């Protein structure tokens, strides 16, 4: 028991320390590295708290993808900045280049506000009931009728199907937004900043089939154990980004239509389910017959995996790709 407590304290201290440093460190490169470790510590916390689903997603997204994005953006901002350059303060990147740096009053004000907010939150958290079932009993009661055995998957793809569908919409919206930023209509011929070296190419080539297997495995796992469309999609995204990064064929090779189809397939299939169920006379919107629900959920998961993978990798590739924009055509 004490050992676990020790672990908890260590983990929390690490989390707080890392987040403090990543926000406070003067070196932006260091902060980026710390951000990745922040994600890893968070996934440890998820495992500790019995949420392996999230640990998987966090490790891949929070640490992996977000880290890659931050790192890539950092490289894009400061191509010359490297490990040796300790003082990345020469030219801060701000929204408003005219406004002065925050003065003492600003800092004090922010500290007071945040301090009172945190105090209030601490009081609120201490006030929370120490036990509480939430919706666990409901979920376990209806789990059998959901078509899957793993409760998290049941919640995501059946009980709160609507949320999951909309969340795929959020992904689509983000990708469309980035397309506007980059003034592009697709990913064709988007180049990596630096030419990949040969070792990496070989390594990724060897890794890719394994990752593809992991994707399928995670997808299959989601039915009865931690895993599912999200985790599989995230691994798929990582694979696609790595392939692109190492100069292999990836989604940048897809034609515009094909890429768009892959991007939107998850959202569109769930939309299709919604439309069909709304047209079906005896059915509530987004309801599916119990005997088919396993099938439908599996189908949706497969397509959603593809879409999540393509969307997340598009996010990364669009953010990291070389800057020579072709202009709208």
């Amino acid at each position, binding site marked *: 028991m004490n050992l676990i407590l020790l672990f908890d304290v260590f983990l929390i201290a690490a989390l707080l320390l890392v987040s403090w440093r990543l926000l406070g460190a003067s070196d932006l490169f260091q902060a980026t590295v710390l951000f990745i470790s922040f994600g890893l510590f968070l996934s440890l916390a998820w495992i500790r708290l019995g*949420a392996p689903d999230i640990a998987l997603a966090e490790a891949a997204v929070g640490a992996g993808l977000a880290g890659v994005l931050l790192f890539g953006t950092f490289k*894009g901002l400061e191509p010359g900045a490297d490990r040796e350059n300790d003082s990345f303060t020469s030219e*801060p990147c701000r929204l408003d280049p005219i406004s002065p740096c925050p003065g003492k009053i600003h800092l004090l004000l922010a500290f007071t506000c945040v301090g009172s*907010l945190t105090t209030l*939150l601490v009081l609120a958290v201490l006030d929370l009931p120490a036990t*509480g079932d939430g919706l666990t009993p409901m979920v376990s009661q209806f789990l059998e009728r959901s078509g899957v055995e793993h409760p998290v998957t049941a919640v995501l793809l059946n009980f709160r199907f609507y*949320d999951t569908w909309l969340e795929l919409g959020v992904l689509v*919206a983000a990708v469309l937004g980035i397309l506007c930023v980059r003034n592009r209509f697709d990913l064709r011929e988007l180049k990596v900043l630096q030419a990949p070296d040969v070792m990496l190419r070989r390594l990724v080539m060897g890794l890719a089939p394994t990752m593809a297997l992991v994707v399928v495995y995670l997808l299959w796992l989601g039915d009865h154990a931690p895993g599912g469309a999200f985790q599989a999609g995230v691994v798929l995204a990582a694979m696609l980004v790595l392939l692109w990064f190492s100069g292999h064929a990836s989604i940048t090779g897809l034609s515009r239509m094909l890429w768009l189809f892959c991007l939107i397939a998850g959202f569109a299939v769930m939309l299709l389910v919604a439309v069909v169920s709304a047209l079906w006379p005896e059915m509530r919107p987004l309801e599916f017959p119990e005997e088919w629900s396993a099938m439908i959920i599996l189908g949706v998961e497969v397509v959603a995996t593809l879409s999540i993978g393509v969307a997340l990798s598009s996010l990364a590739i669009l953010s990291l790709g070389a800057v020579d924009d072709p202009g709208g055509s």
Partner: protein
Amino acid sequence: MSTFSIYSLAAILLVGLGVYGLFTRQHLLRKVMALNVIAGGIFLLLISTAYRNQDLFPDPVPQAMVLTGIVVAISATGFALALVRSIHRRMAESETDPSQDSWDQP
């Protein structure tokens, strides 16, 4: 101190740190990181809530919420970072080329 309470307190402190960073740090990358720290804190609060009851399994609803939240957060982060990079490039361009005052409307 139950596991729930220490983790939820840690979550709150993460949120506080993130908000402080967001308010005081000027660099846009740092602001995006700060937002992600806030998100991490909120997710930690949700998951520690789910952990309170272990009769059958941890409450899956907050877990589903966190999974959704992670995807939303990464979408917004990706978008914001793409914007940061574009803005940085435009401003660098307009510095080297004073004739192109891109702060004005076209």
